[in-house]
């Protein structure tokens, strides 16, 4: 088995649909896992809610908990107005969470460990924020960048800083998710690699190999925490940005 910690992020082409405008258009392992994530989410939610019993079964109560958890988050950060966007936010949360968790299976590909994917998600969020903001408030949405009660001489600087701050949102949103998933999986692989290397170095090495093995176990648990946490942070920040679009006055 390859002991290269970066190799797990390799995009592998499975079959090609041909070329579109000089660009290769192919089914890759990344897109397979995206489809798998969507299939897992739809399959689970549809299966869990099919019974619709008053006293929920185990699967149904997981689905209900997920729903009410995100619904509460949306309501507490954007108010009841934001519930119009609940389907989008719930989908986003479940997609990111499922991709993160699918990546925790050995030999599985982690979709969210690629910056293109997370940046595309972040840009989808920002596009929605801009469209909603301008649709609701028109040009007055730009008042988001002009804070009240700032002395005239420094107002241009503050406005510029506010614009940069707004532009940095998709970057921080995508970088955080991508960085966490990438770094976590590399560290996991490196420590797991130590176990193999030390085990090959005789009896002393094999005994010493217990240490990196324990570390791998701890890191695996930590990665599960990070997988859930980053999906949640992504969702909360989407709500916060959406709140800015709905109520652009600080």
């Amino acid at each position, binding site marked *: 088995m390859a002991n290269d910690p970066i190799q797990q992020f390799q995009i592998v082409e499975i079959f090609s649909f041909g070329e579109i405008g000089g660009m290769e258009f192919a089914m890759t392992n990344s897109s397979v896992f995206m489809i798998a994530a969507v299939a897992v989410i739809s399959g689970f939610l549809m299966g869990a809610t099919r019974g619709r019993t008053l006293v929920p079964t185990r699967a149904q109560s997981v689905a209900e908990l997920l729903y009410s958890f995100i619904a509460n988050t949306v309501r507490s950060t954007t108010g009841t107005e934001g519930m119009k966007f609940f389907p989008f936010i719930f989908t986003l949360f479940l997609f990111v969470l499922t991709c993160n968790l699918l990546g925790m299976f050995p030999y599985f590909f982690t979709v969210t460990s690629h910056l293109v994917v997370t940046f595309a998600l972040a840009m989808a969020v920002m596009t929605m924020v801009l469209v909603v903001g301008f649709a609701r408030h028109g040009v007055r949405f730009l008042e988001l960048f002009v804070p009240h009660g700032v002395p005239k001489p420094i107002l241009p*600087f503050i406005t*510029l*800083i*506010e614009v*940069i*701050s707004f*532009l*940095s*949102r998709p*970057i*921080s949103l995508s*970088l*955080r998710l991508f*960085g*966490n998933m990438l770094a976590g999986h590399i560290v996991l692989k490196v420590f797991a690699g130590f176990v193999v290397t030390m085990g090959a170095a005789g009896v002393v090495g094999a005994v010493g190999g217990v240490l990196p093995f324990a570390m791998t176990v701890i890191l695996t648990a930590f990665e599960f*925490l*990070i997988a859930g*946490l*980053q999906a*949640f*942070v992504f969702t909360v*920040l989407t709500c*916060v940005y959406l709140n800015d679009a709905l109520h652009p006055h600080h």
Partner: protein
Amino acid sequence: MATDRDDLEKRLEALKSKVAEKTRPQEIRDTGQKGAAGIGLAFRLGSEFVAGVLVGALLGWAFDRFLGTTPWGLIVFLLLGFGAGMLNMVRAANAANAERTDDEPGGR
């Protein structure tokens, strides 16, 4: 009569300690959740700041490239990006503080 009162007192004590026992796991779970939220907040603050500086640098670089004002655009926009990163960070921290005070009445 006196023994009755003593008995009642004893039972009350027993009940109090039982209630305390029942409520303690709740507290432990709370601090556990706060630990996870703390990691989340730490990642958030860090990336928020880095993103501000990155966007500032990118804007400055593009500004210089199109207007040929090397290196002034980069210098000015890098500083502005630093400011934006700080602003992002302060906002995130303020929001987190507000959330915490909402959770615990009277504690900041």
